[in-house]
């Protein structure tokens, strides 16, 4: 707390968030300079933006009411495809990430396996799913298979890393106790490691399911199947009322998945 001597006695001043004044003012000046440069160099076509306002209004108006009916068959198919992609890629990704995660846990795996698994995790985590999907589409052709591959790779990176960290944090006492009974490696895994990490991993699996659904709505934009393709088409044709319906459905499903996943997580833990 800083107390400055004033003429009328001691006056209290609120302590600043950043203590060093040099750093504080440096950040302020640097931030202001950066913003000035950015707004100077940013290339915005304001007349085009102004043109967009009526269109934006039309888009907002199309939410009241959205048109669920005229493209119902396409929307339904897209949503189902997204769901299939989500389910398959979550299951597949988790199945593959279990051995990788076990290998990436320092207290479990020998050094070379550890390094290899960590490298796999790092590679699959680096690029956004959408870029992976772009390449998957090039390799496997248009359709849900490409989306499935992209989301599975994303899942491996996410789930494997968290699994490895969870195993590294486990209670070594229980592991030692099981080992002392003469259990083999798989028995040890099954009775000492798995029960300790299971509740958290089920929760994370639900969470990843949630993420995968959100992403599956996007991979369609680059040709990976699912509801994203339907949405892209309806935007391209300026059919805003169908687009609004699709967006509302996506929000609804994401909310439902999020609530049920948090419910299941509470129930498991």
């Amino acid at each position, binding site marked *: 707390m800083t107390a400055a001597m004033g003429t009328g006695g001691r006056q209290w001043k*609120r302590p600043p*968030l950043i203590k060093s004044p040099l750093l504080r003012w440096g950040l302020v000046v640097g931030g202001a300079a*950066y913003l000035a440069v*950015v707004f100077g*160099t*940013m*290339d*915005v*076509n304001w007349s*085009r*933006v102004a*043109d*967009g306002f009526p*269109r*934006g209004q039309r*888009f907002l108006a199309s939410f009241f009411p959205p048109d669920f009916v005229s493209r119902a068959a396409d929307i339904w198919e897209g949503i*189902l*495809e997204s*769901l*299939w*992609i989500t*389910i*398959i890629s979550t*299951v597949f990704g988790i199945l593959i990430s279990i051995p990788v995660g076990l290998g990436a846990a320092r207290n479990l795996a020998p050094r070379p396996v550890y390094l290899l698994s960590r490298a796999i995790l790092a590679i699959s985590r*680096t*690029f*956004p799913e*959408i*870029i992976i999907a*772009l*390449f998957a589409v*090039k*390799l*496997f*052709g248009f*359709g*849900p*298979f490409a989306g*499935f591959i992209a989301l599975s790779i994303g899942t491996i990176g996410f789930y494997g890393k968290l699994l490895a960290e969870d195993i590294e944090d486990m209670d070594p006492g229980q592991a030692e106790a099981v080992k002392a009974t003469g259990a083999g490696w798989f028995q040890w895994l099954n*009775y000492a490691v798995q029960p300790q990490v299971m509740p958290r991993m089920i929760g994370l699996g639900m969470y990843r399911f949630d993420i995968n659904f*959100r*992403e599956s*709505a*996007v991979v369609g*934009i*680059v040709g990976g*199947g699912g509801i*994203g393709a339907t*949405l*892209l088409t309806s*935007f391209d044709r*300026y059919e805003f009322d169908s*687009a609004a319906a699709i*967006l509302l459905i*996506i*929000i609804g499903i*994401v*909310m439902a998945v999020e609530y049920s996943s948090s419910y299941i997580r509470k129930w498991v833990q």
Partner: protein
Amino acid sequence: MPVQQSNGAKVWQRRDRGTQFTIWGIQFVCLAVFAFCWQLISDKTIWEFVYDAPRQANDMASRMVPPAWDYMDKLWLAIWDTINIATLGTLMAVVMAFPIAFLAARNTTPSKALIRPVALFIIVSSRSINSLLWALMLVTIIGPGVLAGVLAIGFRSIGFCAKLLYEAIEEIDTTQVEAVTATGASGPQILNYGIVPQIMPAFAGISVFRWDINIRESTVLGLVGAGGIGLQLSASINNVAWTQVSLILLVILGTVIVSEWVSAKVRHAII
């Protein structure tokens, strides 16, 4: 722990019969659902392409080396745009998320019945729509360019920042608020001196964390025309200029690693 008698000897089992059957049942249902979904996806897949994929991947990889280093001159502007999209978007998001978080937190909201649900709805709808979808919408409305990217990142991040922030507000230490109240402070003064100082570190941490995520996301916004390096990526892919593609991928990798490093450093300094 369930122990069963068989021929007079006690046998330890991991689970009792009911639990075991339930688990088997759940596993069976999951397997059936998986098989069903797999069937549907495999129907829509052209398997010849999939079998051909390893050869294709080899081919693509061989066309990618060496990266076209001289293309780098054209990428600097794209990198600058990408960073700006992420930074301005984050700035916009935190400015808007701050009041929304106070409206959504149970202990600071002016009205639990009226305003809190509205604030929560804003948070949920912002979070449910991926930034790429926001970008798609905004490009259709205000045209392609950096501005659409900034707004897309901003809209997507409002929900994220506001959610984490309102959770932080709900977990504050109430004794400090009480102490400030006891001095006779008014409502805004309580907010200013009792609550805000407590959440400032969390606020700064959330902003930097989101900035890091936004750098990652802004690299792909160009795929739908919202500016940044994704624009160059999709152009190079469409021109099948694979040496440029590999350079762009390296640049994205570098940007992501640097931003992750910066964000880790800053968060370490704050917390």
